[in-house]
């Protein structure tokens, strides 16, 4: 009977008014949206909690926090090991962003412009680092650096981060290359610009959103990377995630919260600024 009512309602009311359907459907929808909000809460709670705890006088995640303090941040800026690691992470991140972006730009150019034998294989090779489990990637590099006699340290970390970031950077840059109208380059050459001038004045500015996005992503991937670094760092040089990890395991001090909050802030600000710049650009050109 209910089904008959629905069928009858289906013809007359196009939107929402289907027999017994509307109330229950609307309720279901509302429940689903509430549920989605809860999942957002689940996703963001630990992140926000780190932020809040970093100014919690208790020095750990208590509820409700008894007040606000900058004590852990003062601890942080006087913590030489943390500061040194922070500097290392920023330097590594900057170098990785530069190298991975240049390599990604070259690879995107090659993949989008040329057809050649083994292209599928080459493409698979570019995405391979994405698919190898971190632990396996880490030990493979340990074995390899040991084999070729490259001492663990700053440059082994850079190399590991570059190959880790490259597939992501390449993906972003490739997107802007595939959306590219090759006739613009022909027009440029036709108007007297040589290959290099065409690249500099036409190609590069047009793929720039992908390049910048790729560079920012490479930076944060490097800045946050832990597993590979854990294997290839070799004790002498430490990045911020390494120091945080070892502090978590051995002394769980409140200064970790402040360091963790800084790590979160750096990544989110870097990527969010890239995203916002992209949107602003899209709006300007529309």
């Amino acid at each position: 009977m209910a089904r008959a009512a629905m069928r009858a309602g289906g013809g007359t009311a196009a939107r929402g008014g289907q027999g017994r359907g509307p109330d229950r459907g609307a309720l279901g929808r509302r429940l689903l949206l509430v549920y989605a909000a809860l999942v957002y809460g689940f996703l963001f709670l630990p992140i926000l909690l780190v932020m809040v705890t970093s100014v919690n006088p208790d020095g750990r995640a208590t509820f409700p926090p008894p007040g606000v303090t900058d004590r852990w941040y003062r601890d942080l800026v006087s913590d030489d090991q943390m500061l040194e690691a922070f500097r290392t992470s920023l330097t590594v991140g900057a170098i990785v962003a530069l190298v991975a972006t240049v390599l990604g730009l070259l690879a995107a150019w090659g993949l989008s412009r040329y057809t050649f034998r083994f292209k599928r294989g080459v493409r698979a090779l570019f995405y391979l680092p994405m698919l190898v489990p971190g632990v396996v990637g880490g030990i493979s590099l340990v074995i390899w650096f040991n084999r070729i006699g490259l001492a663990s340290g700053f440059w082994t970390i850079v190399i590991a981060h570059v190959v880790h970031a490259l597939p992501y950077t390449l993906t972003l840059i490739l997107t802007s290359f595939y959306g590219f109208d090759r006739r613009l380059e022909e027009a440029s050459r036709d108007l007297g610009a040589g290959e290099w001038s065409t690249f500099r004045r036409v190609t590069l500015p047009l793929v720039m959103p992908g390049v910048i996005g790729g560079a920012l992503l490479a930076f944060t991937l490097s800045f946050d990377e832990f597993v590979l670094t854990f294997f290839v760092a070799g004790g002498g040089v430490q990045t911020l995630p390494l120091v945080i990890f070892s502090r978590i395991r051995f002394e769980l001090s409140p200064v970790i919260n402040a360091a963790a909050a800084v790590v979160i802030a750096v990544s989110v600000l870097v990527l969010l600024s890239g995203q916002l710049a992209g949107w602003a650009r899209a709006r300007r050109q529309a």
Partner: protein
Amino acid sequence: MATSTLGRRSAGTGAAPARRPPRGLPGWVAPVASIGVPVAVLVAFVLLPLVFVGVYSFYSLNEMSGLMQTDFWVGNYREVLSSDIYRRVLWRTFQIAGAATLLALVVAYPMAYALGALVDPRRQGVLVLLVIVPFWTSYIVRTFSWIGILQRDGFLQDALGWVPGLPTDLLYSRAAVLIGFVHVFLPLMILPIYASVRNLDRRLLEAAHDLGSPPWRTFLRVTLPLTLPGVVAGLVLFFIPCFGSFVTPQLLGGTGDLMMGNVIATQFGEAFNWPLGAALSIVMTLIVVVGLAIFFRFADVDQVYG
């Protein structure tokens, strides 16, 4: 430069000033450099290292000195496959990763459905970005935060300790590992399912309604089958990093929750049995490859990323 004056003279007609001479790069330079340089880097620092994991997995340890010797020996694999310890670790790794994956599916599906089907498409971009943002933040930091939530006298107990029957001392347990996994990798499950929900042809659902299907049956017979590629993609994309994980069980789990990744790390960092660690790595990689094969066989990749 001689060519420069030559080029200038020959082209100087009319009011347009001379064209510059060509920059003298032969045509093969661009293709070879653009593909060759990144390929060389990846061969040198991804492919060859992986090949040598394979090579090392056939080396052995000298029984007297404990030092590695470069012979060809399948004993590492025999040990991995026959020893109780490694079989148990392998099985446990499957269990934990599998349980986390199913849990994540249950959590993610309604969320992805709400995002893709109920929210105004113009607002979906921002909401999807909000799903991705946590993914941008440090894995270590996010896992670390759960320590403060789940430990005894932690946030969970402070905030919800009054709820009767709610376990609040979860740190260093299987549950903590599962929660950690679901949290850090959840976007990998949400995004592909969201993509397939968004691609659903809304008219099919209306047609099912119109033909008299109650909502739950429409869901089972139309929505679920049509979003299955996204579900499969999500399952595989989520399972693989869980399976290879090393940090989450290390920080959140107890001694009974160690997984393959931890055992491999131990072989390298503490036991100094590189050949055995290499053999374990090869086994883990093969399992991941099988997972990916399933992914590419059954999931419509274009739909997931389209």
